[in-house]
């Protein structure tokens, strides 16, 4: 309660130095090629509505610096109008009492009708809309350079056995099998994909949503970890610290054959003028064809004292969910629209596939939130699990069993 009072007090003080009218300051970390283009589209559409876009991009560390900046902005009582926040973090920010309600916009635009339930649940805090979704990413993709695979007469692998067989063949042929970026979030992205493929949907849910201790320490988890670690010999030494898009460009340029990455990678392929299905393949990661790890990008709106800014916020929220923006944005970003029944005609094979799977998995209950992308657990827990995964990946002396135990301990982090 006290926090709230302090925040309100601080918010009241912002009146004195409020920004220019209808200026919408948006904090985001979409700075890579495809992302930046998508952000540019958003800016254009917003400016068409008479609002001014004030860019607040903070690059680096998958939003780490951005979160620092955001936190100090909020503490100082001067938050940006909107910030790229998603998943349970929306609830955490909601707990701090700093988010603004978007119910008016949601009602006017009929969000309840056009958005899938999983999305609605994520966007609401205590029954009120506080964030606007922009897209749905599928995380469990495997990106393949078909030309390289052809050299060893392999097809895109659908099981882990196939995958490792192909990888070995590639390696023998002097081709680097896997493009990998050694950053904690990328480590965990691959890890969760392996977990889903090896353990299945129920295992995944129990381990990363319920944080069930027994599951985390189970033999299945050990197997998941072992499988995950088996990938390492097929990556190169320079992977440490590499940005995801640089890894993607290795696949694009034929320097590596495959990459585990979410569908934002497609943006890079497209930006390089590659054609899906021909120059590159998008396939569900081994063993995950009937499951879907989703990652929903969204913008949370902060309480602002300035009335004009509130108008800008509402414009922004409305724009984000509008069909036109959803289409243009997601064509650039590589993801699919969040709206149910969106027109997918302009999308490529990968996008269509993703949309189809999303709808199907939504029905069958095999839609799971990506923990690596902050959709499944609180940031503290997620961070602790990141630590274990990255440590296990990098430390060749750690056994899978002890890593599983550490995962269980990390899951207790509150």
């Amino acid at each position: 309660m006290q926090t709230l009072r302090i925040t309100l007090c601080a918010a009241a003080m912002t009146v004195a130095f409020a920004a220019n009218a209808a200026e919408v300051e948006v904090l985001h970390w979409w700075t890579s090629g495809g992302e930046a283009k998508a952000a540019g589209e958003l800016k254009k559409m917003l400016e068409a509505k008479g609002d001014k876009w004030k860019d607040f991009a903070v690059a680096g560390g998958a939003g780490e610096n951005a979160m620092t900046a955001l936190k100090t902005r909020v503490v100082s009582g001067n938050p940006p109008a909107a910030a790229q926040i998603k998943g349970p973090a929306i609830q955490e920010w909601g707990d701090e009492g700093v988010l603004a309600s978007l119910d008016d916009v949601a009602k006017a635009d009929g969000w309840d009708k056009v958005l899938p339930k999983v999305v609605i649940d994520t966007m609401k805090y205590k029954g009120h809309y506080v964030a606007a979704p922009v897209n749905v990413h599928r995380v469990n993709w495997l990106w393949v350079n078909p030309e390289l695979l052809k050299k060893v007469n392999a097809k895109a692998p659908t099981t882990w056995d196939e995958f490792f067989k192909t990888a070995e063949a590639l390696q023998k042929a002097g081709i680097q099998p896997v493009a990998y970026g050694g950053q904690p979030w990328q480590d965990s992205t691959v890890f969760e994909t392996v977990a889903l493929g090896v353990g299945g949907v129920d295992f995944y849910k129990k381990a990363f949503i319920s944080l069930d201790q027994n599951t985390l320490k189970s033999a299945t988890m050990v197997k998941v970890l072992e499988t995950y670690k088996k990938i390492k010999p097929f990556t190169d030494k320079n992977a440490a610290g590499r940005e995801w898009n640089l890894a993607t460009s290795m696949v694009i340029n034929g320097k590596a054959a495959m990459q585990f990455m979410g569908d934002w990678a497609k943006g890079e392929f497209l930006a390089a003028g590659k054609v899906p299905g021909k120059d590159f393949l998008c396939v569900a990661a081994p063993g995950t064809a009937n499951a879907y790890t989703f990652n929903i990008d969204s913008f949370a709106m902060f309480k602002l004292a300035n009335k004009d800014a509130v108008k800008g916020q509402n414009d922004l929220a409305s724009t984000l969910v509008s069909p036109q923006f959803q289409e243009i944005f997601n064509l650039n970003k590589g993801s699919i629209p969040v709206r149910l029944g969106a027109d997918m005609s302009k999308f490529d094979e990968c996008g269509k596939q993703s949309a189809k799977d999303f709808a199907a998995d939504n029905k069958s209950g095999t839609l799971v939130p990506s923990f690596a992308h902050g959709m499944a657990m609180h940031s503290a827990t997620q961070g602790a699990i990141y630590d274990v995964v990255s440590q296990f990946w990098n430390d060749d002396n750690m056994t899978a069993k002890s890593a599983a135990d550490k995962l269980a301990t990390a899951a207790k982090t509150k």
Partner: protein
Amino acid sequence: MSNPTQSAHYGFAERWLPRLVLAPSFLLTIFFVYGFIAWNGYLSFTSSRLLPNFEWAGIVQYQALFASERWWVAVKNLFIFGGLFIGGAMAVGIFLAILLDQKIRAEGALRTIYLYPMALSFIVTGTAWKWMLNPGLGLEKLMHDWGFANFTFDWLVNTDMSIYTVVIAAMWQSSGFVMALFLAGLRGIDESIIKAAQIDGASLPRIYWKIILPALRPVFFSTLMILCHIAIKSFDLVMALTGGGPGFASDVPATFMYSMAFTRGQTGLGAASATMMLMTVAAIVVPYLYSELRGNRNA
């Protein structure tokens, strides 16, 4: 007899002006240093998560901190890094200062070359170092290009070695500054002492080791303090070079605190780690300050 100039009874202005002039800095320090330390200390006993709150939670954050493997890795790294960096920068700096003290031609140019890394932010040079130390792009590739196919230098990406790359880069940045401090000290030494030692037949290394360096004790201590302080606070260095990685293998307390408090929504835990850092600093600095100021009073 040199007593500090004392304000006499007369002269309101002369009596109060000094206090008045010092007052803003004093108040700023009390509020922005000690007030914030207390603020942080209090936070470390709360359950603060994403944003600071003030609900008392006892010592849970400290329990969590001491149970955290990552914290102990960070502490261990601080000792490895601190020890090697301070020792290394000191040794290299003193060595270069002695060499430069031998009536060298182009001393000015060399001094500038040795000193300039101090002028650069690690956000700047981290870019270059990262590239040079990267096995696929930098030194290792260079050696391979030159025909040394078996040369490996993969410390940057090696869990056990990455902290040492931080040492290399940190030494590069600070040893020139140590050189400057010691060179300044060497220039302040009475030449007749050196002459006397030469007449006694002492060799040059012996003169330096036995006579000159001991005379530089004060410089030695102030340099040690500066280096300790750089080591404990080293943040952008680690951030720019390894980002604490691979994994958290090269984490130090400063980066640990940053990621807990700012990216993980564990403000309380971050505050607890900051308090631990502060206590480490205080344990080193307070006795030093105490002796320093006492010494000044008696001088």
